Structure formats: structure tokens, C-alpha cells
């Protein structure tokens, strides 16, 4: 009995101090599951990697760095937070190491490989992960006649009456409103930067469906909303919709037009307890092969252009033996009708717009 208690206590005490482990903080759920399978399980020394869940944001990161008590090595963050974290010195500048990152088969290094995919604002402190998007989806069975096909349909309650699911923050929805209002997807940020009334214009468009919105805040919610018929279409994270279709056999359709492509980064904490191994793991997980491998388990697109090539050549690529490209957000033809996120602009203006959005929502 006492032996059991001892072992039990030891396990408790020993756990937080597991020697030489690289701790990766990520979002949890199917996303982290895909990271574990694609990065950790393919790594030469998987036992030293451990994943931990967190709720996003830089709050904990800053608290750890400021107190000098850094517990994480790598953190999975949104692009605007990669920028802010890098500016504030919460993440270490590793741009000098980019040359050591694994090159694509065509010889392109990390930076060139990213540029080939349209990403020119790579954060200095981080390695690229995936593209994820805010995309509109619906259940085709809910539309016996004509089905919505353009983002303007999402904003047209006369043509398609019914509630719409929208999240409780502004990013994604604003850009869609602008595209629905007639701005070309690739010009959205140009307009936001150059025209003073651009945001007003977006809000005016959003007003048109204001009374027909159900606001969600948790990523799993939009799927339930659409499935239960609570709303007829909803904005969602594309990976959630892809997982529902590919793994659970749901029947959903996307409206790719106006989707907002956002980046995701894995950043090295300043003062990471196991910096050397963490950097090595970061290099491994940003290799084209690892990036492609991840798409076997979740429908987020590799940020490295060469990752896409591997997937295309290997179809059917999804682990259940289904083609994954139909669900990938960043195929060339979809990129033409997508808004490419501009994290720098969002890092500048996000707070103001979120406050305005909250005021708009509650009125």
C-alpha cells in the first residue's frame, strides 16, 4: 500500500520537472492532435517533446517571461500575436537561423518557399505552421432550391432567409462584409489602409444582417448551429468543417469566396528552458514534409508552398483515404477569391475594431 502511495506521490512530483523535455503550448483538440502526429511522432527523438494546452493569447507568455519563470519552449500563436510577442521580446529573434531551416526540393529556403505562397511578412521570431481560414459553410440539404455560392449571399437575407452564425469578435467578418460589398478580395487591406471610411463601409454592410445573427464564441459551436438548423449558414474555422466532413461523414458545403486566410506560427520563447532541442524541433516541424504530413489529419493548409506540392502528388492524402485538396483553403484557384490576412495591420488596429464591434453587437 505504502509503495503505491509513494509511487503515486512521486509521479505527481516528478511530472512537472520531467528532465530535458521540450514543452510546446498549443490550442488543444484535433489541431494539437494533428501536430502531435505530424511533428512529434515523426521526430527523431519524440520522447523529449510534450504538448500542453493553453487558451491562446500572450497573457501567459508575458507572465512567464516577465517573472523569469519560463516553463514553455515553443508556443503556437496567431500571426498578430507573433508580431507583438516578437516586438516585446517575449519571443526570441531567430531570423538568423532561417538559413538552417530545411529547404524545399526545388532548393527554395524557408523565406523563398513562404514567399512562393504569398507570405512576405514572416515574423522574425517564429517558424511557419499552417494557413487556417474563416470561411462560410452550410448544409446543402437546408436549401432545396438554389444554394448560396457567393459571399454576397451570406449578406442577402431576402434571397436566403434565415439566421447566420457569426463569431463574437470582428476579424474575418469585417473582411467578408467588404468583399460582399463589392471590394475585390485582394484589395480589402489596400482599401482598409488607404480609405478613411473603409471600416464604416464594412459596418454598414454588416448592419444589413444584424438582426439575423446568432453569435458564437467557441470553435465547435458553428457546426452544432448549422447541424441543428439553428442557423442556415455560419462562419467557421475551415479545419473544423473539414474534420466534420472527412472524419464524421457530415455533408457540408463551403463558400470559399471572401474567406480570410490567417497564418499560424510556432514561436520560440525568450529564455526557453531547453532552447537547443526546441529550435531543432521547430526546424523539424516547419519542414515541407512535416507540414504536408499534418494535412493527413486536419484540413489546414501548409504555409510552405512545397508542402502543398507533396500533398498534391500523394493524393488521396487524408488518413482515411480521401482526397484532401477539395477541403484545402489555399489551392491556387481559391487563393484568387480569398482575402490574405495582414497581421501587421491587425496588430495596429485590432483592439480598436474589436471594441467597435462589441459596441455594434450590443446595440
Amino acid at each position, binding site marked *: 500500500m505504502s509503495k503505491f502511495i509513494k509511487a503515486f506521490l512521486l509521479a505527481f512530483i516528478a511530472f512537472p520537472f520531467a528532465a530535458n523535455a521540450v514543452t510546446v503550448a498549443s490550442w488543444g483538440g484535433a489541431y494539437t492532435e494533428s501536430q502531435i502526429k505530424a511533428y512529434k511522432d515523426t521526430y527523431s527523438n519524440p520522447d523529449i517533446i510534450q504538448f500542453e494546452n493553453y487558451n*491562446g493569447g500572450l497573457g501567459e507568455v508575458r507572465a512567464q517571461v516577465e517573472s523569469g519563470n519560463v516553463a514553455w519552449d515553443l508556443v503556437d500563436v496567431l500571426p498578430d500575436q507573433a508580431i507583438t510577442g516578437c516586438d516585446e521580446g517575449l519571443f526570441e529573434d531567430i531570423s538568423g537561423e532561417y538559413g538552417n531551416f530545411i529547404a524545399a526540393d526545388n532548393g527554395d529556403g524557408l523565406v523563398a518557399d513562404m514567399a512562393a505562397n504569398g507570405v512576405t511578412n514572416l515574423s522574425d521570431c517564429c517558424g511557419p505552421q499552417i494557413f487556417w481560414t474563416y470561411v462560410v459553410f452550410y448544409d446543402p440539404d437546408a436549401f432545396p432550391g438554389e444554394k448560396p455560392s457567393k459571399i454576397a449571399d451570406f449578406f442577402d437575407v431576402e434571397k436566403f432567409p434565415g439566421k447566420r452564425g457569426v463569431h463574437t469578435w470582428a476579424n474575418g467578418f469585417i473582411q467578408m462584409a467588404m468583399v460582399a460589398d463589392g471590394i475585390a478580395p485582394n484589395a480589402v487591406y489596400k482599401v482598409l489602409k488607404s480609405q478613411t471610411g473603409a471600416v464604416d463601409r464594412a459596418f454598414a454592410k454588416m448592419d444589413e444582417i444584424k438582426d439575423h445573427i*446568432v453569435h458564437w464564441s467557441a470553435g465547435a459551436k458553428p457546426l452544432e448551429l448549422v447541424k441543428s438548423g439553428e442557423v442556415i449558414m455560419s462562419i467557421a474555422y475551415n479545419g473544423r468543417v473539414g474534420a466534420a466532413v472527412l472524419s464524421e461523414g457530415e455533408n457540408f458545403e463551403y463558400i470559399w469566396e471572401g474567406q480570410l486566410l490567417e497564418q499560424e506560427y510556432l514561436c520560440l520563447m525568450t529564455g526557453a528552458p531547453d532552447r537547443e532541442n526546441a529550435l531543432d524541433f521547430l526546424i523539424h516541424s516547419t519542414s515541407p514534409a512535416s507540414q504536408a504530413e499534418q494535412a493527413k489529419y486536419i484540413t489546414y493548409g501548409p504555409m510552405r508552398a512545397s508542402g502543398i506540392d507533396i500533398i498534391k502528388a500523394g493524393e488521396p492524402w487524408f488518413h482515411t483515404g480521401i482526397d484532401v485538396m477539395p477541403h484545402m483553403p489555399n489551392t491556387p484557384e481559391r487563393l484568387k477569391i480569398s482575402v490574405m490576412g495582414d497581421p501587421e495591420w491587425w496588430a*495596429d488596429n485590432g*483592439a480598436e475594431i474589436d471594441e467597435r464591434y*462589441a459596441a455594434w*453587437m450590443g446595440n
Partner: protein
Amino acid sequence: MEVTISATNEILTTDGIPLKVSLKKAERKNKIRAFLLVFPLLLFIIVTFVVPIGDMLLRSVDDSQINTVFPKTFEEYKKWDRQDLPPEEVYKSIFFELAEGEGIQIGKALTRMNYSKSGWKSLIKKTKRKIKKIVKSGDLPTSYKDTMIEIHKGWGDPSFWVSMSQMTDERTLIYYWNAIDRTYDIDGNVIMQDEKRRMYIKTWIRTLKVSVYVTFFCLILGFPVAHLLANLPLRYSNLLMIFVLLPFWTSLLVRTTAWIVMLQQKGVINGVLVWLGIINDDQRIQMVYNMTGTIIAMTQILLPFMILPLYSVMKVIPKSHMRAAQNLGAKPVKAFIRVYLPQTVPGMSAGGLLVFVLAIGYFITPELVGGKDGQLIGHWIAYHLKTTLNWGLCSAIGSILLAVMLVLYWLYNKIVGIDNIKLG
């Protein structure tokens, strides 16, 4: 002990020490022992309670970091007459402070500057790169003002310079003003925030409103339950107690999600109403993803915090009091109001205060069922803590919350009396 009386009339113990001293010594020992016993607790309270609250209060007025990064600029800025654009000296100071400043310190400063005006962040980052190049080339400009405006037209935009007036003091109240939709103009006068962004006051009022509603409904619903619990035979009251405690022990998330299933438009309640023909299929009521949902879910979740103190107070009210009142001629209603109700005040107060305090800072439930107008102030604390890193504003909101609580406590003490609170 054996006591002798010495020549100087002092009472001595057997070892010759005056009794007074000896007693004092023994007492001091006891005192130290008592202190050592509570010391861990004291330390715990200081570390986990006093220090964090103090830190929060300090952060809510602290603006010193940015003043260490741009001291010269702010000094020159204060001399400016606030007309048109600042003079050449201001541009020159910020030019060199950007060129020579330490990267991370500037990075932190510009995150803070962006709170006062969106756009500072990229303005400075873009300028800094170019300034470094100029300084490296050694070809210093003749007019720093023209050069900087040439690098980025933002330097010629007066609104950036207006916003700088919010940062020049090491101790500032700007975060408190921001937390109630106000800001400083260029002369440091307090003005209303841009109309489209005003939402903090609304959120404060909404938070108070929801907390009052939740407390009220908890009281209305909890009182009869507690009364039943206290007066039923043990056999039944134990079973009933399990019904109160079971949800109390169930995960918050599960209960919140269950409410969504019940309340949504294609949910259980609407389904039953439609089935009974009370409402038409196209008249389904929106009961969740708005304030109604927040109030319903929070009431159910916080109900045990009302029932349990009420129960423990009601349990000790002798049944004979009601009987005596009725014997003396009071009708049941009057006996209840005059005799029973006053004795339950300590329980109502304890439960009410407990529910209200918990409700005012609630986060998860409003976040999930709040939707368009059911999010409370806790949402903005989390938002600024995690997303914008505006910990000053975060602390200011937290401090206001603390102040509201203290004011309520003071009011309560005035009206009901704090001795009149009882958890059992």
C-alpha cells in the same frame, strides 16, 4: 511556583527573577508560538492576496516604461505649444531615441503607444528601420521633421501627436478613463472616447444589471427550496439536498452547454412550445446567445450559493416561533412576514452577497451563452490580458470592480450591518 517577597517589596519567583518579568517572558513565548502557528497562513495571504492586488493597483496607474524609452522626446513635447505640428526639436529627439534605443524596450513602448492611437506600432517600426539606415550611412538630415514625414506621412498627422499627450506622465489615470469610455485631448482634458468605440460604460451597466437580476432570481427561487430543505422530514430533505448538490458538483461547462440545448431556437423548450401549439414554428423565441440566456444560465449555476446559506440559517430557526406567533393571533402570512422572514435576513444577506460578488466577475458562462449582448466586463479583462496585452487597462477594470465591491460592502454594512451575516 514558590513565591517570596523580597526586601524591595517586589514579588520574586524561586529563581530570583521578578514575577512580572517572568510572566511577561512566558507570555511572549506564547505569543511567538501563536504567531508562528498562523505565520504560514499569513504568508499565504500576503503572497496570494495582498501582493497581487497591490501589483494590480500599481499597474493600473503605471506608465513609466515608455518614459524611460523616450525621455528627451517627452521633455521637448511638453514645451510644445500644441499648435499645428511639433517643432523640430521633438522630431530630432525621437529620431535619435529611435535610432539608439534598445530594440525590445522600444518594442514594449510601441505596444503601449498603440493603445492610445491605432497605427503607432507600424509607424514606428517602419520609421525605425529607415532611421537606422540613415544613421549608419552617417548622412544626417538637415531637417529631421521633413525627413521623418518623408519616411512616413504619419509623422505629419497631428492625431498621432495628440495621442502622445496621454503618455507623458509616469503616473497616469488614463487607463481608468479608458475603462469608462473617456480619453485625454491634446491639453490633457478628459473627453469622451470616439462615439463608435464607446462600450465600456454599457458593459459596466450590463454587468451590474445581470448581477442584480441573477441575485434577485436566486433569492426568489432559492428561498422556497431552502425553506423546504429546512422543514421537511430528514428522509425527504436529504434527497432534496442531493438534487441541490448534484448540479453544484457538475462541471460548469456541462451545465452551460445543457442550457444551450434547452434554450436554443431548435431546442427543447421551443420544441415543446411549438408542439403544444403555444407558438408557431416561425415564432420560436430567442432565449440564448443574448442577455436572457446569460441570466438564466447564471441563475441556475449560482443557485446553490444562495440555497446553502439560507438553509443553514433556516435550519436553526425554532419551529415554535411560527406557532407562537399564530397562537398570539397573527395570520400565517403576517406571522411569516413579521416573525420568520426577519430571522432569515442573515442567510439572505450572506447568499445575496455571495451570489452578487460571484456574478459580477463571471466569465465562462456569459462567454458561451452571451452572444450579442450578454457578455460582461470579465470578457474585456480577459481580452486585454491575453490579446492586446494592455495590462494597464486590465488592472484599471479590475480595480474598478474591486472598488464597486467595496462600496457595496460598505453600503451593506450601513443598511443591514455586517454582524448580521451568517453562513450557518
